[in-house]
């Protein structure tokens, strides 16, 4: 066998091996991203819940499981750090080192009326997921939306949220809203995006009955990524002051979501 033929055979074999590995992985993503994680049984304490979804784009990345699934950004360190802050600064006794991940149409999600959803620029919920989220919010659930920038991501969020809450409006919030004072007194919302300077965060809410005096059901941190601050707060990569502000927002979101 000529060296050229050997080389061709080797490449063909390698291609078969790569394809045989890559196709199942891709198929598993397409079937619901069956990545390994463990949800902990409900025990009556506050548990951080991250919403998973089938993103419009995915690939390898520097995130959990070596994959960029969008919803797994900052997982699990962000929630672990936020729970530590909650434990030390508030009277909440959260489940430490335990956080859960649910799809929006998972019945178990309804045991946890506080949930975190990120990278909604790549969010495209199914009809079942959209209906389930709508029920979740109207029953009393509270959703924090984080980590999306630029207009196209904003428009995607608006479009997807219209599937969920077609009759509801997104209302820009200012610092006077009670959510910004539910635990920490936040004086300004003028932060910088942790990794993309120049983007000015804006906070949008969806209110019960479209009435800004009523319960806030969803808060979206547009042009912001407080999860990033939570994740990297202990690394020294992000300014402490702004990390603190991000934690303040997180704690306030939790306290507000549990009481309003």
């Amino acid at each position, binding site marked *: 066998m000529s060296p050229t033929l050997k080389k061709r055979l080797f490449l063909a074999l390698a291609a078969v091996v790569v394809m045989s590995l890559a196709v199942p992985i891709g198929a598993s993503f397409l079937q619901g991203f069956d990545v390994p994680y463990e949800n902990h049984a*409900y*025990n*009556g*304490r*506050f548990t951080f819940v991250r919403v998973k979804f089938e993103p419009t784009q995915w690939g390898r990345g520097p995130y959990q499981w070596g994959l960029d699934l969008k919803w797994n950004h900052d997982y699990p360190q962000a929630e672990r750090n936020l729970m530590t802050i909650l434990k030390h*600064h*508030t*009277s*909440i*006794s959260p*489940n*430490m080192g335990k956080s859960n991940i649910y799809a929006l149409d998972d*019945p*178990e*999600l*309804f*045991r946890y*009326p506080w949930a975190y959803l990120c990278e909604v620029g790549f969010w495209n919920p199914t009809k079942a997921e959209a209906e389930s989220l709508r*029920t979740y919010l*109207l*029953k*009393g*659930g509270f959703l924090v939306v984080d980590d999306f920038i630029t207009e196209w991501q904003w428009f995607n969020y608006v479009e997807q949220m219209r599937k969920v809450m077609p009759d509801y409006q997104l209302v820009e919030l200012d610092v006077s809203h009670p959510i910004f004072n*539910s*635990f920490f007194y936040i004086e300004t919302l003028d932060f910088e995006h942790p990794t993309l300077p120049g983007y000015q965060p804006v906070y949008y809410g969806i209110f019960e009955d479209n009435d800004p005096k009523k*319960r806030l059901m969803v808060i979206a941190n547009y042009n912001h990524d407080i999860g990033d601050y939570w994740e990297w707060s202990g690394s020294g990569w992000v300014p402490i002051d702004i990390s603190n502000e991000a934690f303040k927002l997180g704690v306030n979101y*939790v*306290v507000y*979501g*549990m*009481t*309003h």
Partner: protein
Amino acid sequence: MASWVESVFEFLFKYRPLLYERGEFSLGVSWPLILAGVVAVVLAVPTVLCYRDVRGKSSARDRLVLTGLRTAALLLVLFCLFRPSLSLSTVVPQRSFVGILLDDSRSMQIADVENEPRGRFIQDTFGPEGSALAKALSDKFIVRFFRFSETAQRLNDPAALTFAGARTHLARSLIRSAEELSNVPLAGLIVMSDGADNSNAAISDTLLELQARKVPVYTVGLGRERFTKDIEISRVEAPRSVLVGSSLIVDVTISQRGFNGETVRLDVEDDGRIVSSREVELSSEATTVRIHFTAADPGARIFRFRVATKEGEMVSQNNQRDQLIYVEDERPKILYFEGEPRYEVKFIRRAVADDENLQVVCLLRTAENKYYRIDIDDPEELASGFPKTREELFKYRGLILGSIEASHFTHDQLRMIADFVSQRGGGLLVLGGRLALSEGGYAGTPVADVLPVVLSPAKERSEAEELAGPAFFSTLTVKPTPFGATHPVTQFGPDLDASSERWATLPPLSTLNDVTAVKPGATTLLTGSGPGVDEQPVLVFQRYGRGKSIAFTVNDSWLWQMHHDMPLEDMTHELLWRKLLRWLVSYVPQQVSISAEKHRYAPGESVSLLAETDDDRFLKVNNAQVTATVRTPSGERFDVPMEWTVDKDGEYRGNFLPREKGIYEITVSAMRDGVELGTARAFTESQDLDDEYFQAEMRMALLERVAHETGGRFYTPDTVARLPEDMTYAEGGMTVREQHDLWDMPFIFLMLVGLVGSEWGYRKLRGLA
């Protein structure tokens, strides 16, 4: 005694049993003659003994029998020779008085005897055409008539009776007529009535007084002792006041005669509008059912409970009852103190957010010495955390303690919470949670005494154990107890079946508290069971002092709102919390309270008011200036001074006489040293009462008791003909002693014939003649 027995008795013994009861037995001969008789007997004995030895064909037994029969006959003749007699007090004709009390109440209009009203007997007896009874009475006595219902009044002509009295007060009427005839020789009182007394007054004292006065009462029972066909709303148990919008569950007792097994419809009407209905099967003589309705409109409301009249009923007026309920448009304030942010805060607040008659002020400890206040009235409210003084805490009518450990409070604050229930009369609701109940270290504290569940000392936990998870956790499938199934708070839906169905579909909750026992005086409404937990008390309450305490031992009632299996439109969670919190603050006294003794008075009946006053520490105030302002149905206002009763601290009483029919509004205000202690409002009604148509069967037991205990007799229209003669031999009035011979009574003659005949017959039988 049956009348035929009495007739046989009278035939044999010449006189009726009554005369033997009242007379004294005596012999009509002098003692020397009796002595001579005894000597004669003594002499006869040896004679008999002589015959004993006579022989012949007779045996010893024959001689004994014949001697006995002959001796008995001789003794009977001897007894007659002694002239036995009955000594009786006998009324002197036309020298004694008799008072005849004629029932003039509405129940006498009931036509339950051969379709004739009960009053017809009175009209026939004492009408212009007269009767043998009336003649016999007037021949022997000087007759005085009285009409009676609420009280007794002299009556010149029985034809003037109208049978329109709204109430019957038998005891008062008896005393009133006895007093009026106290200066004349009174042979007795005759009461002609159905005995349907509805005064609720005890009659024992009256009967003792009549005994002491030696006034026998002869009662004549009119009407049926038992209706053949009737339906009656015999009892309605409803609160005197409720918060507007509250769901009421009222117990209604329906009595029936002749409709056993039939189904009727019970309606509740508010101002002519049916607000609730349910079918009721009349399975026994008295059936108690619960009916739900909502008090939707504020103010003094008259709710009517009604069953449609069925064919053949003897009384149709007793098929409905009215109940005056004050539907308060208030907003009682409840303090909810929660030790940590948790979902119960959010969902309880949401559940009652739209209830305009509940204000839940939330004090949330978000961190050590850091509080988040929600729905406060002013910036100063609860600014320094949980109240430190009684004045501050006692402003609230309800207190909810969430997951907050006992060590957060000072001992005085724990004592104050206990006093909030026992002294102030507030409602305390303790929720389950990580830092609640036993797990919160409440065992041994004053709060533990108040709670309806038994607490045990908290177990020490290390930091690692605490981080690992809760000390106790179990899911609980919750269901109502038999009592809870019909309790206003825990019954969902219009009836038990709908409620049971609802409970069966509710998802399980969870608890972080190991509660195993309830206090002896507590009542459990809900229990829960789950893995390793058998029948944990979930919702328990007890009265404690002036107030009540409730324990709701689950950690996450919000799952009944949020759980995936709960439909979005389901209102179970909201309803439960609204009803629970309304119940928490129901009947919680305010500093000043006012109530009328009854919710309904007859026209002309005095309204009795009772006010209670406390200071802001809920200590009784005896030196307050308390005034009740009455607003009449026509809008006129007048003040009623309220006086301290002296008998009881903080209690003031006053009276007023309603001059017109309708609803009266009573507003009371109390001042001390120029400072207002508070105001309160109540309602009562002056209206024609229909009590006469309830429990309207002839009450023979009462009439018999009145007669028996005073020395009289009970009669029916069939036996009343004997009344004049019976009264002739009474002790009362102007009487003389009369002797009535007994020697000639048929019984003695028959005995004598029997004895002599027996002797002859025996001799013939034995061949000794």
